[in-house]
């Protein structure tokens, strides 16, 4: 009895307690879990959708290729003129044949002549047919080559559009990267300046002063101006003094010049005493 109560009761108690705790954690976690992730997932999907839209837009721009179709239309018009130009030589040659046949007097000869003429006519007709066929073939070939050219042009255009899209995307990404880089440098500058900042006792929590800092690529400060005053001159002056004390930001030297020109040539810094209680 003593041993039983000594060992079994504590064991049962311990096991039950742990099972209870595990179940509580599981249920509580699942409840909070569904709650949190229902909020989170759409945000993630949204971000992906934006990139997808960008990619889709550019392929849409490609169908602007119909221009070559319009170009192809005038070309068939020029072909008939070629046909006209080709026809006259045939009539000339038939006239020559008639001249050579005329000196013979007899009927037989006439008949022969007629026959010859007929034959010649037939020959001519055949020739004509052949030429026409040739011409048709030629035309077909031309059309095929034109078509091929058109397709090539379209492909080229598609490729160009794709390249353009890719370039745009790259520049976009580059811009994004630049922005991130600029942000990190801006945070650095802000930290440096704030470490030199000694706030006047009159500083209050809701005060805010905006400074325009002009920088050169070596990171030196060449000018500070108050663009939006907080209304408290000593507070403004302390901010300006902080920037002047900081003097230069040698880290900016490592920055790519394009980023510098875009973001840091003239740089806006907002001073807010966030850690004050009043």
């Amino acid at each position: 009895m003593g041993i039983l109560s000594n060992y079994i009761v504590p064991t049962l108690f311990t096991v039950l307690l742990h099972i209870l705790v595990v179940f509580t954690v599981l249920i509580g976690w699942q409840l909070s879990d569904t709650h949190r992730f229902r909020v989170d997932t759409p945000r993630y999907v949204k971000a992906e959708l934006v990139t997808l839209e960008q990619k889709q837009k550019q392929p849409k721009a490609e169908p602007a290729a119909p221009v070559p179709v319009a170009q192809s239309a005038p070309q068939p018009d020029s072909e008939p003129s070629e046909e006209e130009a080709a026809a006259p030589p045939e009539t000339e040659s038939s006239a020559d044949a008639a001249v050579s046949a005329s000196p013979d007097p007899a009927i037989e000869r006439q008949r022969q002549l007629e026959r010859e003429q007929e034959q010649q006519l037939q020959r001519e007709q055949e020739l004509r047919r052949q030429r026409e066929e040739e011409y048709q073939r030629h035309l077909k070939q031309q059309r095929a080559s034109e078509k091929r050219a058109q397709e090539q042009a379209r492909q080229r255009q598609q490729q160009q559009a794709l390249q353009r899209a890719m370039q745009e995307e790259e520049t976009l990404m580059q811009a994004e990267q630049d922005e991130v880089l600029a942000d990190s440098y801006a945070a650095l500058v802000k930290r440096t300046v704030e470490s030199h900042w000694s706030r006047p006792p009159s500083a209050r929590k809701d005060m805010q002063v905006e400074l325009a800092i002009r920088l050169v690529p070596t990171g030196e400060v060449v000018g500070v101006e108050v663009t939006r005053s907080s209304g408290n001159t000593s507070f403004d002056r302390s901010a300006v003094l902080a920037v002047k004390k900081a003097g230069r930001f040698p880290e900016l030297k490592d920055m790519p010049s394009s980023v510098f020109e875009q973001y840091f040539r003239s740089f806006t810094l907002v001073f807010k005493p966030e850690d004050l209680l009043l």
Partner: protein
Amino acid sequence: MNENLSVVSLITNAGPLVQGVMLLLFLASVASWWIIARRFLFFRRARHEYADFENEFWSGVDLGQLYKEGNAKLEEGRDIGGAESVFRAGFKEFSRLRQQMGGDSDAVMEGSQRAMRVALSREQDRVDRSLGFLATVGSTSPYIGLFGTVWGIMNAFRGLANVQQATLAVVAPGISEALIATAMGLFAAIPAVIAFNRFSNVSQSLVNRYDTFAEEFSSILHRQAHGRRGERDI
């Protein structure tokens, strides 16, 4: 990837070391709660027994009779602890020495007091038993949990280094799973620390009571040894 972020999946997806830490902490928690429950029962019984014994002792019952009752209890298989065992050790030694030495009351007193001291220290040992384990769990399991967390976060950030787009969603599951180790460490540590403080307090007071009882009893024995003989039949 985000949907199945339950505790189970977090624990099963954790690294082997973090899992080992979690297992260790879970076992520590089980063991410490087991000891807490056992100690709780033990102290409750010890206090009851002490109160009962004291009542019986001061009720004027014959001490030899009390000793015989204890013998009967032992034969039944019940263990005797606390003040009663101190009493039994002192009484046994006293009567034995009394029979052997006869008149030398100083030697009899000294012997019986020594026997009571021995019984008292044995009781102290019994009362303090396995409190050391609670102290160990209470002080080390937060560190063990922290170790698991640090390790897990380390791995999460190492994974972050291989990813092009570093978003919070990449490291968040790793950190979350790592933090479970700290939570478990705290879960094991807090009850252990509370129980340790409480139990060491209780054990201290119990040992004090035994000590007081031993002094009182030795004063009775002293009276018996040096006083008029035969007033109280020992």
